[in-house]
C-alpha cells in the first residue's frame, strides 16, 4: 500500500502527458504501470487503517487523495475484505461538492475518470474546484454505500507537490585544515507546480546523511531564493547522500523525496601542491645561500681587499715590519746600514710577497761596494747633511786647504753666502786629514752612527745641516777615529770633563762622508764653548790630527763634543765682530774667539744663521 504513492507519482506524470496526447500517453501509462506500489506513509487516509487487525472485516474505503498541482487531484480506494478484487467494476466512486446547509448541491456524481487498474479516480481540471469541500463515497453493485464524513476534504489541503528536479551540488569552500568543506545544493522547483504564477507557494526541505548511517539530517530551506541550500561541515573522504522534498507553505503535507544525489570530496591535492611549492622555495633559498657563502670563501682575499682596504703602514722593502716596532732600531739600523745588503735587490729578503698592494718605502742606502758607482745615488739625507762626497769634493774649499785636501772648489764656492767674496778662504773645510784616515766605508757608517732621528739645529751656508743629536750618545767604536779621539782626549787631559759635558747638550756637527778625505770638521767659531777645550785655530795642521773643539758626528769623537746649548744668547759683539755667546750651563763662559789667523776673516763670517742686518755689521 505504501508503494502506491511512489508509483502514483510516476503515473500522474504520464497521466498528464496522457491528457495532452491521449493515445500515446495512455499506452505509455499502461505499459509503465506496475501493481506493486503503496501509498506514502504520510497520507492521512492510511493512518486509520494501519492499526486495524487483519482479521476484522475491512470495508471498502479510500486510501488516499492527493493533488500535485492544485489544479487536479486523484483518489485511490481499496475494496477491503469485501467484494471481489478481480472485479474492477464492483465498486464505484461518487463524489459530492458539499455545501453545508444547502440541499440543492448535495447530488452525488460519479468519478469523471477511472483508472481501475490502480483503483484510482482522477479529477481533471474541469471537475476540480479549489476551496470547496469534496466528499467521496464508494458504492457497490448492491447499492451499498460506504461513506465516511471524515473523507471529505478541500483540495488545497491535500496538495503534495512533486519533488524538485535537477538536484546538484557544488563545493563552496574548504576549511584551512583540509578536513571539512561546505557544499551548496541547488535544485529547481517541480515542473508541475506553477510557481512562476504564484499559484503554489512552495517551501523545501533538504535531508542528507552519511552513507552508512540511518539518521537523516533535515534542513528547512528558509532563505530566498529558496532553490539552494548550503550544507556546512561535511567531512573529506566520506560519501553523503542528499535528497529533497517540498510542500505548500502554510500547509503540512510534504511531497515525495527526490532521487538521491551523492556528495563525495576526496583528499584535496591543493594542500600537497602548496607544501611542495614551499619546499621548492626553501630549497632554492638554501642553495642560494650556500652558493653565496662558497663565493665569499673562495674569493675571500679579493673581497677583503674590496670591503676592508688595508691601512697603509710603513713597510720598507727588504725589511721586516717587525723591526719597525719599538725597541728594534738596532737591527733596523744594521740593515739600513748595509749589513743586510739592503741596496741589492737580489739579496734583500722578500717580505710581503703575498700582498701585492703593498707599496714600499724605498730606502736608498748606498752599497759600500758600489759606492763609487753610485755617486749619483746619494740619499736625500746625505745631501741634506752636507752633500754627497762627490759633491763635496767638488765643492771643496778653494783655498790652500782645498789643495791639500784635493777638494775641488766649485760648487761650494757657489754655495757660499753672497757678499763674501773671500769666502773661499772662509772655507770651512776642515782638514781632517789625519794620519789615519778613516776608511771610506766608515763614512756612511759614521753618518749612520748618529741617532736615527736628530734635530736640525742649524743650517750651514753652504747647505750643510747642523744636527743636534738626541739624549743618548752613540758609543759605537769606529776604529782609528776613535783612537784618534782618545788620543786627543788624553792630550787634553780633560777626558772626564769632556765626558761629562758630552752628556750635556752638545753641538753636533755633521760631516759628510768623505771617501777620500778624512772626516772634516766644521768649526763654527762662535760656538766654541768648551771650557777645557779652547777653540783652536782653524789653521789646519796638516800632519797633526786636528782636534776640533767641535763635536764631530763620529762616534768616538762624540766624546769630544762640546756641550753647547742649542740656543744661546748673544752677549755682545767683540772687536773682531764675533758674536759672544753666553752659554747658560757651562762652567766657564769663556767665549771662544777665533785667534788671529789668516782665516780671521772666518770669524767675520759667523756660522749659523745670521740675519741680513747683522751680516752687514759682521762683514769687514
Amino acid at each position, binding site marked *: 500500500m505504501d508503494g502506491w504513492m511512489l508509483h502514483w507519482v510516476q503515473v500522474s506524470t504520464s497521466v498528464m502527458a496522457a491528457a495532452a496526447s491521449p493515445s500515446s500517453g495512455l499506452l505509455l501509462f499502461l505499459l509503465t504501470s506496475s501493481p506493486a506500489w503503496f501509498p506514502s506513509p504520510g497520507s492521512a487516509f492510511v493512518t486509520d487503517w494501519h492499526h486495524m487487525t487483519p482479521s476484522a472485516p475491512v470495508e471498502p474505503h479510500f486510501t488516499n487523495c492527493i493533488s500535485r498541482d492544485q489544479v487536479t487531484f486523484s483518489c485511490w480506494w481499496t475494496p477491503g475484505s469485501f467484494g471481489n478484487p478481480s472485479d474492477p467494476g464492483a465498486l464505484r466512486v461518487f463524489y459530492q461538492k458539499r455545501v453545508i*446547509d444547502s440541499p440543492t448541491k448535495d447530488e452525488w456524481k460519479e468519478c469523471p475518470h477511472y483508472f481501475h487498474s490502480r483503483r484510482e479516480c482522477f479529477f481533471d481540471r474541469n471537475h476540480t474546484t479549489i*476551496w470547496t469541500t469534496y466528499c467521496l463515497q464508494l458504492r457497490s453493485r448492491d447499492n451499498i454505500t460506504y461513506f465516511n464524513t471524515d473523507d*471529505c*476534504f*478541500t483540495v488545497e489541503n491535500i496538495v503534495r507537490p512533486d519533488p524538485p528536479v535537477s538536484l546538484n551540488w557544488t563545493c563552496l569552500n574548504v576549511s584551512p585544515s583540509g578536513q571539512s568543506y561546505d557544499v551548496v545544493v541547488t535544485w529547481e522547483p517541480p515542473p508541475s507546480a506553477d510557481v512562476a*504564477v504564484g499559484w503554489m507557494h512552495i517551501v523545501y526541505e533538504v535531508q542528507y546523511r552519511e552513507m552508512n548511517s540511518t539518521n537523516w539530517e533535515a534542513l528547512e530551506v528558509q532563505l530566498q531564493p529558496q532553490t539552494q541550500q548550503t550544507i556546512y561541515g561535511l567531512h573529506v573522504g566520506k560519501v553523503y547522500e542528499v535528497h529533497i522534498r517540498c510542500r505548500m*507553505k502554510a500547509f503540512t503535507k510534504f511531497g515525495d523525496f527526490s532521487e538521491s544525489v551523492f556528495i563525495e570530496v576526496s583528499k584535496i591535492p591543493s594542500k600537497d601542491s602548496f607544501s611542495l611549492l614551499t619546499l621548492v622555495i626553501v630549497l632554492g633559498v638554501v642553495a642560494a645561500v650556500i652558493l653565496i657563502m662558497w663565493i665569499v670563501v673562495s674569493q675571500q682575499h679579493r673581497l677583503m681587499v674590496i670591503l676592508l682596504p688595508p691601512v697603509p703602514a710603513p713597510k720598507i722593502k727588504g725589511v721586516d715590519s717587525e723591526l719597525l716596532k719599538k725597541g728594534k732600531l738596532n737591527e733596523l739600523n744594521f740593515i739600513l746600514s748595509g749589513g743586510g745588503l739592503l741596496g741589492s735587490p737580489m739579496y734583500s729578503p722578500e717580505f710581503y710577497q703575498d700582498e701585492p698592494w703593498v707599496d714600499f718605502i724605498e730606502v736608498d742606502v748606498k752599497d759600500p761596494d758600489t759606492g763609487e758607482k753610485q755617486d749619483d745615488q746619494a740619499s736625500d739625507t746625505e745631501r741634506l747633511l752636507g752633500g754627497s762626497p762627490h759633491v763635496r769634493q767638488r765643492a771643496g774649499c778653494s783655498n790652500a786647504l782645498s789643495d791639500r785636501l784635493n777638494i775641488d772648489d766649485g760648487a761650494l764656492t757657489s754655495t757660499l753666502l753672497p757678499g763674501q767674496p773671500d769666502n773661499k778662504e772662509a772655507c770651512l773645510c776642515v782638514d781632517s786629514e789625519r794620519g789615519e784616515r778613516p776608511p771610506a766605508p766608515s763614512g756612511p757608517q759614521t753618518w749612520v752612527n748618529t741617532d736615527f732621528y736628530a734635530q736640525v739645529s742649524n743650517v750651514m751656508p753652504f747647505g750643510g745641516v747642523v744636527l743636534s743629536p738626541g739624549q743618548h750618545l752613540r758609543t759605537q767604536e769606529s776604529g782609528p777615529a776613535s783612537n784618534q779621539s782618545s788620543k786627543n782626549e788624553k792630550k787634553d787631559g780633560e777626558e772626564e770633563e769632556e765626558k761629562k759635558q758630552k752628556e750635556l747638550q752638545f753641538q753636533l756637527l755633521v760631516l759628510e762622508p768623505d771617501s777620500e778625505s778624512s772626516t772634516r770638521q766644521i768649526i763654527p767659531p762662535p760656538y766654541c764653548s768648551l771650557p777645557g777645550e779652547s777653540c783652536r785655530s782653524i789653521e789646519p795642521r796638516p800632519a797633526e790630527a786636528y782636534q776640533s773643539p767641535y763635536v764631530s758626528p763620529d762616534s768616538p769623537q762624540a766624546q769630544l763634543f762640546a756641550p753647547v746649548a742649542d740656543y744661546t744668547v748673544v752677549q755682545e759683539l767683540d772687536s773682531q765682530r764675533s758674536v759672544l755667546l753666553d752659554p747658560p750651563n757651562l762652567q766657564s763662559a769663556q767665549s771662544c774667539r777665533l785667534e788671529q789667523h789668516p782665516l780671521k776673516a772666518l770669524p767675520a763670517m759667523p756660522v749659523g744663521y745670521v740675519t741680513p742686518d747683522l751680516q752687514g755689521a759682521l762683514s769687514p
Partner: protein
Amino acid sequence: MPGKLTSVWLLLAGLTSGGGPATVTAALICANGQAGCRVLSLAKLFDRVIQHSARMHSISDDLHSEFEQYFVPSRNHIGRVSRNCHTANLLTPDSKENAERIAREELTEVILKLLVAWRDPLWHFHQIAANFSSDKALEMSDMVRELRKGVEKVAHKMQTLGMISNSVSSPSSREDLPPSERGEWRLMKDHELLYCFRRDSDKIQNYLKILKCRIVPEHGC
C-alpha cells in the same frame, strides 16, 4: 512587518493625494525632498501586498492548528464545520482557470470584498481570545485592515495607470453586504471562524498572485 506596511501606505497616500492623472506627485513621506525617496512601481506594490497576504495566511494557519489540538484530530481539517462560512455566498473564482478568466476588476473587487467581510469577525475574535494567542489574533486583525488599505491603493494605482476601469469600488460600509451576511459570523464558533478565515486568506493570497501576473507581466506568467 506592520510598521513597514504603514510606511508603504503612507507613501501610497502621498502618491495618490494629488488625485490627478498618472503624474506621480511627491508622497507625504518624501515631502521634504529627502534623498532616497522613490516612487514605488506597481510591481513593487504588488510584491509587498502579496507578502503581507502570505504572512496573514500563515498566521491564520498557526491559529487554526492551535485550535485543532483541542479536538479530535481530523484528517483533512474537515468534519467539524457545521455551517458554511459567512463568506460562502460571495462569488469567488474557485479554480486557477476561473481566476485567470474573469475580469481584473472583478478579481479586485472580490479581494476587497473578502477583506471587508473579515474585518469585524476578526476584531471580535481578538476580543474573545484574550487568553489564547491574543497576540496572533491581534496581528491577524491588524493585517486584515492594512491589507485592505493596501489593496485599495493598488486598485487606485491601477485605475490611474489605466489598467482597469474605474468601476472598482470597495464596499465601505456594512450596508453593502448582503443581509444574510451581516451578522452571521456571530453564530460561528471560534474554530469554525478560524477554519473559514484560513481558507479565505488562502483565496486572497492566490487571487493577488494571479492579479499581479495579469497586471504586471513577468516571465512565466
